[in-house]
């Protein structure tokens, strides 16, 4: 196992070192001032000095993003199942699912505040709104692209609609759902950060979005990049968690037993 994990981590680590090294050298050679382009070494220093506050802020945003993603997963899947149940329902309500995708958070910010108040509630709502669309779209595709031969088999076996839904359509749609979840994971972080810009409360210091805003106002470009880096790492972490979930269910898919009643 050990040498294998070394191989997995080595290429991205090497490319990271190479790219940051190039950026550092370019900034030095081009003599760019710190207030326009912070050197990666300055960003690393800022990250180190402000580690505690940045981690606290990342945790703050991370909780909201994961909650928002969880809600997207559950409600998104349920909405997809509802839309898949009847073509009339689909035609009538699918445009609203598209609406989720296109609404700019800043425009509905006052409404979020009215419904959820300032704070984590509104931030989670923003995270949900931004991340739910790919889950609905992908899961719906999965539910509607069930193998027609298997559907025929179920019909011939006189299966009930519920059985067809739970024993055929839904299991068949799980890979699509997981694809949607992977796409949604990054969006959940973005949604949480945008939500923080408009509706968080600063009581416990706020999240990463707030940290970026403050760093911008204080003209600390190194801190801006440090905070942005933390938000990228948060996105990567959540993506990695979702990929892990994906691997786990694929494992069950191929090798485990699907326990039925």
């Amino acid at each position: 196992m050990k040498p294998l994990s070394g191989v997995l981590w080595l290429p991205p680590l090497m490319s990271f070192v190479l790219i940051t090294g190039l950026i550092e050298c370019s900034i030095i050679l081009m003599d760019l001032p710190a207030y326009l382009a912070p050197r990666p070494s300055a960003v690393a220093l800022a990250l180190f000095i402000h580690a505690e506050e940045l981690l606290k802020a990342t945790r703050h945003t991370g909780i909201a993003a994961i909650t928002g993603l969880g809600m997207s997963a559950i409600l998104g899947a349920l909405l997809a199942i509802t839309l898949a149940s009847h073509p009339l329902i689909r035609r009538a309500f699918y445009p609203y699912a598209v609406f989720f995708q296109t609404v700019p958070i800043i425009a509905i910010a006052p409404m979020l505040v009215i419904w959820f108040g300032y704070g984590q509630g509104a931030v989670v709502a923003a995270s949900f709104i931004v991340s739910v669309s790919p889950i609905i779209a992908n899961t719906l595709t999965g539910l509607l692209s069930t193998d027609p031969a298997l559907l025929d088999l179920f019909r011939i076996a006189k299966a009930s609609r519920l059985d067809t839904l739970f024993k055929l359509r839904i299991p068949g749609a799980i890979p699509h759902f997981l694809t949607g979840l992977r796409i949604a994971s990054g969006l959940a972080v973005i949604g949480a950060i945008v939500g923080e810009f408009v509706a968080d409360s600063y009581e416990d210091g706020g999240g990463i979005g707030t940290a970026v805003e403050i760093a911008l106002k204080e003209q600390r470009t190194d801190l801006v990049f440090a905070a942005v880096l933390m938000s990228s790492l948060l996105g990567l972490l959540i993506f990695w968690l979702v990929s892990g979930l994906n691997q786990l269910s694929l494992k069950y898919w191929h090798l485990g037993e699907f326990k039925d009643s």
Partner: protein
Amino acid sequence: MKHRQGAGLKLRGIHRQFEGRPVINHLDLDVAPGEFLAIIGPSGCGKSTLLRLLAHLDQADQGTLDRSEADLDVAFVFQDPCLMPWRSVIDNVALPLELQGVPRHHRIPAAEALLRTVGLGDAQGKFPQQLSGGMKMRVSLARALITRPDLLLLDEPFAALDDITRHHLDDHLQSLWLSHPMTVVFVTHSLSEAVYLADRVIVLSAGGGNITLDYKVPLPHPRTAASRLSTPFIDHLRTVSEAFEGHSRTLA
């Protein structure tokens, strides 16, 4: 426990067209209970459509389809084994009983027994991705048989397999039919397979779904590998082949 012989079917004036083109052209057909009927014909002769009509997956535009019983147990085997990849082999086989509400402690032993019959007793816990094409088809057959269907419909089930596997599966199907009396309607492209398995071979014409030959194959069951090389078999095969090619040639 069923004591039926299998379903009897009576088709009168069955007509089905797609986009103005008749795929089945005022067809009359009687199928006796427990009969093994093979249907052969060139592509587009409507044999798959006919099978779907028998399965009630499709409705005829005109004509009547009478079944000997009102509530028939029908099973269908496609060319694609169609196994659910998220279920183990045994759960795939047990599916039809599960959909009928049969509890686990009844349906699993039944599935086990059928898997043993098709020689896959050790594969119960495996998943479809771990099986070869021939093994998957055997699982598909086992699944089709688990409800002891009155009517078994097969649409070119072994066409995607190599000859040796195909012969083995022909024998599996034959022994299953002999041990579970049921009516079988078997669509195939292979003339020798039709003659090997069936009591009766029907040839459908191209583009129109008319019966050009209705031929009884009076060879005794069970038929074996040796039967394929016997003189009577070759005679029957020749007759069918000439009728098949003769008609095809007139249309070419």
